[in-house]
């Protein structure tokens, strides 16, 4: 018990450092596994995603693709980004601004059959709010269009 104050201070600093480094290592390890990556349909087509891994899928809801299943609470629709498309199924109440031809971010995972099973849909809350990933995507698209116009 009779530790010198200076030694005790050192012990405390080491204890705190050990805990923080432990926390950081644990965090780094968990982040590798648990961070869910954002994919556009063309990313999924190009790179592929293992079934069952939590990801976010973002894109536009294809016009005319929203279909309601017989249970009345499951919707199936197609998300596309101009280059590729992915079928999505979602069981739940869709967000208020979830409409065809509009942007959506779906959280969930791919199943073995190549359908994206969404746990959660994020659409715009109001005209000022948009999931961040989509905001960037639109910008990219606008940029691309601008570039094509210029090269023409």
């Amino acid at each position: 018990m009779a530790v010198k104050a200076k030694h005790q201070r050192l012990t405390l600093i080491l204890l705190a450092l050990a805990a923080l480094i432990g926390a950081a290592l644990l965090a780094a390890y968990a982040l590798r596994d648990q961070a869910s990556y954002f994919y556009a349909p063309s990313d999924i087509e190009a790179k592929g995603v293992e079934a069952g891994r939590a990801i976010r899928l973002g894109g536009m809801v294809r016009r005319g693709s929203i279909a309601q299943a017989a249970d009345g609470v499951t919707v199936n629709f197609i998300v596309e980004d101009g280059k590729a498309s992915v079928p999505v199924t979602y069981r739940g109440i869709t967000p208020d601004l979830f409409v065809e031809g509009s942007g959506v971010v779906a959280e969930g995972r791919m199943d073995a059959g190549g359908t994206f099973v969404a746990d959660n849909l994020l659409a715009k809350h109001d005209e000022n709010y948009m999931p961040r990933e989509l905001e960037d995507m639109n910008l990219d698209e606008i940029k691309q269009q601008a570039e094509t116009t210029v090269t023409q």
Partner: protein
Amino acid sequence: MIAEAGLACLWLAAALSLLQLLAGGFSLAGRGEQLASIIRPVAIMQGILVAIAFVMLIWLFLRTDLSVKLVAMNSHSAKPFLYKFAGTWGNHEGSMLLWVTIMGLSGSCIALLEKRLRSDTMIATLAAQAFVSIGFYAFLLFSSNPFERLPSPVPEGQGLNPLLQDPGLAFHPPTLYIGYVGLSVAFSFAVGALITRNVGPVFARAMRPWVLGAWIFLTLGITAGSYWAYYELGWGGWWFWDPVENASLMPWLAATALLHSVSVLATRGALRTWTIMLAVVAFSMSMVGTFLVRSGILTSVHAFAVDPERGSFILALLAIYIGGALALFAIRAATIREGTRFSFFSREGALVLNNVLLTAILGIVLIGTLYPLLTEAMGTKVSVGPPYFNPVGAAFALPMLVVMAAGPLLRWRGDSGRKLINMMALPVLAAAVTLLVVVLFGGRIGILPLLGLILATGLAIASIIPLWGRNLLRTPLNIWGMVIAHLGIAVALFGMASESAFNQEVLVASQPGESHEVGPYTLTFNAIEPVAGPNWTALEANITARVTGSDSSDTLNPQSRNFSSPPTQTSEAALLTRWNGQLYVVLGEENADGRWQLRLWWKPFVTFIWYGGLLIGLGGLLALIGRTVRDIRRRAHDMQDEENEQDQQAGEAAA
């Protein structure tokens, strides 16, 4: 005129904060005794002026003065009175003005109320407070002016985001901000103590009520925000690990650690450097949170407008204040006297362990919150959610809860293991009984909810043991405060664990006349009716809820609302609160075949989460009252001690 008057007050307040800083700086440098005497009145006046500016903005919103840009962008003449009033801070500029108003008023409060701090530390503290204020005044005046006029008034305003049109808007942001920005006082105290080399028990006793006060408001603000998100979003969740939620949790974790370490410093003279560090970290977390929410790098209902200039401005302020404080800390840390040494098996030992674990949790939340921003800067978009935060946070939170149960049972200075084992017998028994009951009757539940339920019961019993054998009427209020706050943690934990373990959900497409069972209830969907509010129309479901097999019934009316300005659809959940849980009903859309989507939840003991939060706040309040009353009673006595301490420290400084 009102807008110009408000802007003038804001400029004057900014000028006074500059004066406050300069006066403080010069008088500390030993130039001018008179300068020292103006610093308190200047601090008080600065707070009054910024508060007047804030009242002016409220007035503009109440009058719906559409020649002011901010009002035109965010308000509407047909909005109900409450939302005209609370809408003042439902936008970027208004909420930043609220921020600096609380910052200025905190400075006034220090100047008016703080009597124990040594006079040079007091001057340095007020100068530090002014230094931080100046940056945020500049931010407001140069990049977020709330009083800007439009070239010509518009005929009608654009309205307030309907998700914010809720009584919660009147309560949650101000409470949270008082807590958030109130931590600036602890920061300024720490800077003041570092500058004047005055870190010791007397200083800690002076700082403690301020930390406690900010912490109470922060606790209540987070609790209110969680409940608001729970009933407003209609997702049935109470915490989403959203970056803006983490932005409020991080200062809370740091402030909780600080609250406990400052007690160790006040009582035992130990943890000097650590306490100062935590005070700096706590307000730094508030500023990081402000940066995350107000810079526009996140998109959420909390972040109002995206403007890169604002982001860089706040980032620069962060670098100056956090970097400056850390640099000062690095220079002065070596001059802080060694704390009194102590036995690890004691109250202070447990508090140290808890502090370390709280800091580790803070680190985990910080890493998880910043990681997506870092990867996005490198071109990869990721999101980090519950699968990361829950298990990784629990790895440190669970041991922390065990230490939290045992810590208050230990005596200061040192204690015997045998006594602790005896005292812990009852809580451990309670936890074991819970385990048995849950395993036998609870069905299959996850490991984290199970551990949560066990720890919650054990902790609840352990937290009231300190009252054992005491005369309850003569027990000091601060002991009551600790007991009630710790009990609040147990109650909240029980609610969280119960909600995730026993939550029942039913999702149906229903025709009027049909019944559905969820939990102990049978719900009958009677009809859909149109209803109208002040600035919205809605479709409202009429649903009868009846405990299955009983006669008495209640009516639930979930709505799907349409707001006209801005045109938005929101869904209003209907809640039925019982002592043992909540029924939560959301109305979805009408299908082509005339059926309506209904989402029904039975959430056992979910309300305990927020009752727990209120208990934690109440515990803090009791401790604050207890400490303050004691403080006033002993002031005469203490002043004597303080002089002695000053002499002693002056002696040391000379040596």
